[in-house]
């Protein structure tokens, strides 16, 4: 494989990494936003405090993911974003509401706090459902038929549920006492619906996109790929075991919920990437057809090769600074 052929693949990987990082990182804080209405006043403050230092940087991964699409694959970019025009707008308005509600709820006069709490929830819901819808229509190749729409709708409901599980897992790690117990309860409630939906989507994907069938159910692929669903199942039951055994959480193994959920996300992501590769728009455009010129990609590649490791290092540093149970956020 030549450098010119390899470069687009590298950028596909970078884009994938950015989007995966986004879904996991902003996923948990969107999940916390979705859980907000269920908490008491003081718990709301703690929940927000648990994501306060992170959400900004979390959202940046979305900008990087879309940025790579924009920068490295301009020919796919216009096609994808025009096809997703409305859900993109819905997501953006959701992200705007959420991002500002976060600040306004504590800075605006007290009587508006409830309004901004609701805006935070509404923004999280709009953003996560729109992302699910976008993912659904992307998988179906922007199919506008009834089946395609139903599929998109299914993911528009499933993704927020998965975010809720992630958010609950985050809260189990970052809080204790009453709020932690509630988070366990929330995780238990959302676990089965999410699991069923994930299985349904996995089963439906070959239906809406027949090309996927050969990739998964040929021999020897089916055996090589078997560990993927198996590991998913193990992770699922690990979550179930923890959330149904409060003493396990008390013993300090609450993190299993978050880590297992992340594992499910990673595997689902891997499965999806495998299904689509090497297309960037299913059935219409391969990654090489969508990429810009090699010389421009090389220019950005130098930047990525230098900065991405640095970004990862200081992201880890940031998470270490705020390691441990969430405290009230103060400027002091």
């Amino acid at each position, binding site marked *: 494989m030549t450098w010119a052929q390899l470069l687009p693949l590298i950028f596909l990987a970078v884009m994938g990494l950015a989007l995966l990082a986004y879904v996991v990182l902003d996923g948990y804080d969107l999940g916390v936003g979705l859980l907000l209405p269920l908490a008491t006043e003081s718990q709301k403050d703690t929940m927000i405090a648990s994501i306060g230092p992170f959400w*900004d940087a979390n*959202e940046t991964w979305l900008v990087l993911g879309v940025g790579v699409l924009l920068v490295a694959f301009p020919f796919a970019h*216009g096609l994808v*974003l025009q096809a997703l025009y409305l859900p993109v*707008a819905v997501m953006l*308005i959701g*992200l705007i509401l959420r991002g500002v509600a976060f600040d306004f709820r504590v800075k605006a006069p007290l009587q508006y706090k409830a309004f901004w709490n609701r805006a935070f929830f509404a923004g999280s819901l709009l953003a996560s459902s729109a992302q699910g819808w976008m993912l659904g229509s992307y998988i179906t190749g922007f199919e506008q038929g009834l089946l395609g729409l139903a599929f998109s709708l299914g993911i528009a409901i499933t993704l927020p549920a998965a975010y809720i599980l992630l958010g609950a897992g985050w809260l189990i790690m970052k809080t204790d006492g009453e709020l932690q117990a509630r988070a366990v309860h929330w995780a238990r409630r959302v676990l089965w619906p999410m699991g069923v939906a994930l299985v349904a989507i996995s089963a439906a994907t070959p239906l809406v996109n027949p090309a996927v069938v050969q990739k998964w159910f040929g021999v020897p692929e089916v055996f090589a790929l078997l560990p993927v669903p198996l590991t998913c199942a193990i992770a699922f039951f690990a979550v179930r075991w923890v959330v149904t055994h409060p003493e396990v959480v008390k013993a300090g193994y609450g993190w299993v919920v978050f880590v297992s959920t992340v594992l499910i996300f990673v595997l689902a992501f891997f499965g999806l990437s495998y299904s689509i590769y090497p297309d960037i728009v299913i059935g219409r455009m391969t990654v090489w057809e969508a990429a*810009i010129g090699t010389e421009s990609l090389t*220019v950005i590649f130098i*930047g990525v090769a230098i900065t991405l490791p640095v970004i990862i290092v200081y992201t880890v540093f940031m998470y270490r600074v705020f390691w441990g149970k969430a405290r009230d956020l103060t400027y002091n």
Partner: protein
Amino acid sequence: MDALILSRLQFAANISFHILFPTITIAMCWFLLFFRLRFIKTRDPAWEEAYYFWTKVFALTFALGVVSGIVMSFQFGTNWPGFMEKAGNIAGPLLGYEVLTAFFLEASFLGIMLFGRGRVSERVHLTATFLVALGTTMSAFWILSLNSWLQTPAGYEIVNGQFHATDWLAVVFNPSFPYRFAHKLLASALTASFLIAGLCAWQLIKGSATAGTHKAMRTALVAAAIVIPIQFVAGDMHGLNTLEHQPAKIAAMEGIWHTEKGAPLTLFGIPDEKAGETRYAIKVPKLASLILAHDAAAEIKGINEFPGAHPPVAPVFWAFRVMVGMGSLMLAVAWFAAWQLWRKRRELDDGKVRLPRPLLYVLAGMTFSGWVATLSGWYVTEIGRQPFMVYGLLRTSEIATHIAPPMIALTLTAYLIVYGLLLVTYIGVLKYMAENPFKHAPIPGGNAALGKAGV
């Protein structure tokens, strides 16, 4: 209305809303760094208090900038798909470097800057503040580089209708970039200065001023008084550069229709594009040539020289006058206030600012004067680039989306509603914070429990 007009309106709305917030944060973070450094050097709690109060304003402004910026990054694809397809080889790397070197830096260290005290050492916290300031400025560097390239493209070749870079240094440091970058940074410094001075003045009027208020206000007024003459020089140099590279824009700014030597400066008038003249014009002979080319007899090209390729005259003409007018007002106010400070310098030993009450009202009224100047300047430069996306080479009409117009109208309406709500809320919250400086903020050096959840 067609997709092109609607897309342009939507982009204009988004970018107008977005630019308001980075314009504040780019410079404000350097103010914060200064407050922090002063505190570390003097250990005067007033400086620390100033840091905390303005950090809260910064965080709020930054959040608005981030969320509206994310919208911008999607708009290229949703509304201007042709732009990245044709100019992606140039614009892509510049945007990519912005995200990689600037955006992550500011977003990550902002968390530590805002909430890291007590968890990291003073030195790390100071470094975080510095890195956020550096990040916002680098962000401006890349965006201004791209914007300047669209105005004065350099270092490229066109192959099969696509732009390709031949010399990246020439692309990044294209002919108008140094002027535009300097002009923007200075504009940001002024916007932040007047915002700080204005809110502090409001605190003095309302009786909610604290020791930190006086510190911040003096810093802001001194900064404004120093920066504004520099801005006039930078603006003048920027003008010379524009005359050289974008004569049609200059002609529209000045309302000059026919090419002439020793062109007069039109102070006011009503440009009439159909008739090809500026009605009711009040003119000063030869002054336009003198200002624009630093030569009273110089020839200035008129709009008629650019049939079908000049910007709409009236908005550029008017926006330019608003920008210069606001700048002049800022100059007068900043210098008068600085003079007042200097006159009463002996009484300043107690660190308090004593300004005449009417001046406080003027300053409070000018809290957002930087926004007016910035937006009008932005309109001069961006509307002045029309009808081109890449000046002289790629027309805006060639890159527009094929989305159905009603859909664009729908999202445009939604954005306008959200932006309107946020703008009103933002200004209201700033006012509220100024009047209640200790509402959520911890007392510096005091008990952390006092500052519960002061996000």
